[in-house]
């Protein structure tokens, strides 16, 4: 029913309804009334428009504009897709951000880019205008944030270990020695990030010596168990005991060993082999047992359990016979020993990680199996005759974990070649160790120590590596 009909129906009951109808019609048709009605319409439209604008602004204000996070020192680029974000029909004028953060906005491409130098919540302002705005130049602002993360590397603190501790040892150490059959030896050992972060000790250790009389060289590495209170001392004593035994006490035995080996090299009969094996076993078991006993003695003396000194132990005995290298290796626990020969064509794995009874467990020198298992030592020993030797690596799991990940990778030569490349500079930080004869071994050992600082998320254990390499 339109207005006229409605009026008619309202007036109908009244006696003089026709007069009223005529009056009302005149009023309605009056130009001024028409004008006033139009005016009211216009006002109503304006109010609707202004609420429309209010609604846009209200929605924009409530809109969530999440931008991807950035990280200090990492290049950042984000392209605004305005309609996807919900700014469809608006006119974007600019995006403002503070200047000193290292990021900038380019209006033509709608891109924020740069490399952030500060971390925290970076406030940005999106400036826009509404086409419906009566004053079209009114600039509206929508605020949002870019979360800039700190560089994870910068979060690791370095706290010195307690100097006054009776078992204190330096947080890092190096050793170098030249002219071992024309090869150089460098060893570097560094406290891991997680120990540094908590002011704990370096639990790894190493030692080297040679027996001048018999011309045998011995290199030992050890990794103290993280959960053992005094494992830093355990690793130290384990290495030193083996090395000192070889250096000082084993001269006669080693000389005799030399005879047996010479015999065997001439004639590899079963008889010679058996004699050699047996005698070798005597030497090895003596050195390993001495090591174990040293730990038991120390624990006893201090009223501690031997397990407080739990440690792994890796060592290599090396001697050159005319043109052949004899390499004898032993390893209990994790970490590994590997040798490259023939200009990198050949690879020998001399020791691989040794797991405990249950998966994920590590076996230690102190685990006790040493006596329970009569094959304990034999299982963990290798005797190799190499016609040439390019480089020998010994490392604790602080290095083998990040560089090889799974145990299966250890037997693949390409991973060791990759390790060589990494060492000589092919890495994220471009830090190289000069394994040629251009640098003195002392300097190279320092370079190795620097290299040990490489970043590998999740791998923050102590790191120790020994490298015996040719001077060319």
């Amino acid at each position: 029913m339109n207005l006229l009909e409605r009026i008619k129906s309202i007036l109908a009951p009244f006696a003089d309804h026709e007069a009223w109808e005529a009056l009302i019609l005149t009023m309605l048709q009056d130009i001024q009334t028409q004008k006033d009605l139009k005016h009211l319409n216009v006002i109503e439209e304006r109010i609707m428009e202004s609420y429309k604008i209010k609604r846009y602004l209200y929605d924009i204000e409530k809109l969530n504009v999440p931008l991807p996070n950035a990280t200090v020192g990492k290049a950042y680029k984000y392209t605004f897709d305005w309609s996807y974000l919900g700014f469809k029909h608006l006119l974007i004028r600019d995006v403002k951000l503070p200047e000193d953060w290292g990021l900038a906005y380019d209006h033509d491409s709608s891109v924020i880019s740069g490399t952030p130098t500060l971390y925290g919540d970076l406030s940005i302002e999106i400036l826009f205008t509404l086409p419906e705005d009566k004053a079209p130049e009114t600039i509206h602002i929508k605020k949002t944030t870019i979360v800039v993360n700190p560089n994870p590397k910068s979060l690791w603190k370095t706290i010195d270990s307690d100097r006054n501790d009776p078992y204190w040892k330096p947080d890092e150490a190096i050793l170098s020695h030249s002219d071992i059959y024309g090869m150089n030896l460098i060893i570097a050992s560094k406290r891991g990030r997680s120990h540094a972060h908590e002011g704990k000790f370096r639990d790894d250790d190493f030692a080297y010596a040679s027996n001048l009389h018999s011309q045998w060289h011995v290199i030992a590495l050890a990794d103290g168990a993280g959960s053992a209170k005094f494992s830093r001392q355990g690793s130290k004593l384990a290495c030193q005991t083996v090395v000192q035994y070889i250096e000082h006490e084993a001269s006669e035995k080693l000389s005799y060993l030399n005879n047996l080996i010479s015999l065997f090299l001439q004639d590899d009969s079963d008889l010679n082999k058996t004699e050699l094996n047996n005698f070798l076993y005597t030497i090895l078991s003596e050195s390993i047992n001495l090591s174990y006993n040293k730990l038991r003695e120390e624990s006893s003396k201090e009223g501690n359990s031997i397990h407080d000194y739990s440690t792994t132990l890796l060592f290599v005995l090396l001697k050159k016979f005319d043109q052949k290298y004899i390499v004898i290796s032993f390893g209990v626990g994790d970490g590994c020993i590997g040798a490259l020969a023939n200009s990198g064509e050949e690879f020998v794995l001399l020791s691989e990680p040794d797991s405990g009874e249950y998966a994920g467990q590590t076996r230690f020198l102190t685990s006790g199996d040493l006596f329970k298992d009569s094959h304990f030592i034999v299982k963990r020993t290798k005797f190799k005759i190499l016609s040439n030797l390019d480089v020998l690596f010994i490392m604790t799991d602080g290095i083998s974990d990040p560089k090889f990940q799974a145990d299966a990778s250890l037997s693949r030569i390409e991973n060791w070649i990759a390790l060589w490349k990494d060492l000589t500079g092919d890495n994220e930080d471009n830090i190289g160790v000069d394994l040629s004869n251009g640098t003195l071994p002392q300097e190279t050992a320092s370079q190795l120590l620097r290299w040990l600082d490489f970043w590998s998320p999740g791998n923050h254990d102590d790191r120790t590596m020994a490298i015996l390499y040719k001077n060319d």
Partner: protein
Amino acid sequence: MHRRLPIYFLIDVSESMIGEQIDQVETGLATIIKELKSDPYALETVYLSVIVFAGQPRTVIPLQELIHFYPPKFPIGGGTSLGAALGHLMFELRRNTILNSPERKGDWKPIIFLFTDGVPTDDTTQAIQEWKDNWQRKVNLVSVSFGEENDMSILHSLSENVLIFQNSTINSYKEFFKWVTASIKSSSESVESNGSGFEMALLKSDILKKHNVVDKPENLQFTDPNYAVLLGKCQNIKRPYLIKYKKELVHTDILGLDLSTRIYKLVNAYAIQEDYFELSIQNQNGGSSISTDELRGMPTCPCCGNQWGLAICKCGNIHCVGEESISQCPWCGNQGSYGFGSGSLDINRTQG
């Protein structure tokens, strides 16, 4: 690739949370993230996910590395469907959890923080059974009761870690979130040193109290809810809002008898998003009603500023009214003019 420690937040965003509570949770979560980001252990192992639930559950932040985490804005919805929320959580757990394999080390046991402030409004039996059968032993769940009217027996059926958050001091929320952060941090450290991977931080008894299964419930039946929340829509902006009232007992002396009457005092009105409806149960007819007699305080419209935020249309819905001569209900389109009515009306309150 190293092992992840997945942390899930399962957060109740029913209407009673609107206002201070949800703001505190938002701020609290942002603070937790900030703290965790400065911990190198947490940065490498912690993966976070945020799931909210009201009438429906929704994953607001899918499981991701801490470094990518962007603090979310929490929506609000009607209802407290804990059963549906659990189902959704189990779906996410199934989807996300990485198990041990030769190529990859599997996840640590996920930790789940459940925050809820009220009694579930859906049937939780089936979900709880599935939880007990398949997930209870594979995760560490901590339930934190925010409200005073929670069904503790349901929380106990989920896990033995049931805590009551007591908003007793000015810094309560801050302290509570500090506790959550400390628990996550020590769990991620324990994971580094091959520990159990779940260490709840020390509970400060004035902020968080452990609730035991044998504790006697405060009342045998559920008390009247603490809050009455009404849904309205702005006439001008046409966006929804919630009006929150808090229960108070008023002592009146009638003929010498000291009686307490229950009234609801206005807290505030809050603008909400359209996703309120997505998060609410589809038909709200199960809601209880409240008499306008019990309400004290008239809110202004939080969207457009209209003076009267609680006007009831013929269709039974609430909208705002201003100085306009003819108002139009944004729900049903009906037009009319409003005066002040006398007597009281029963209006539908939301499920809570």
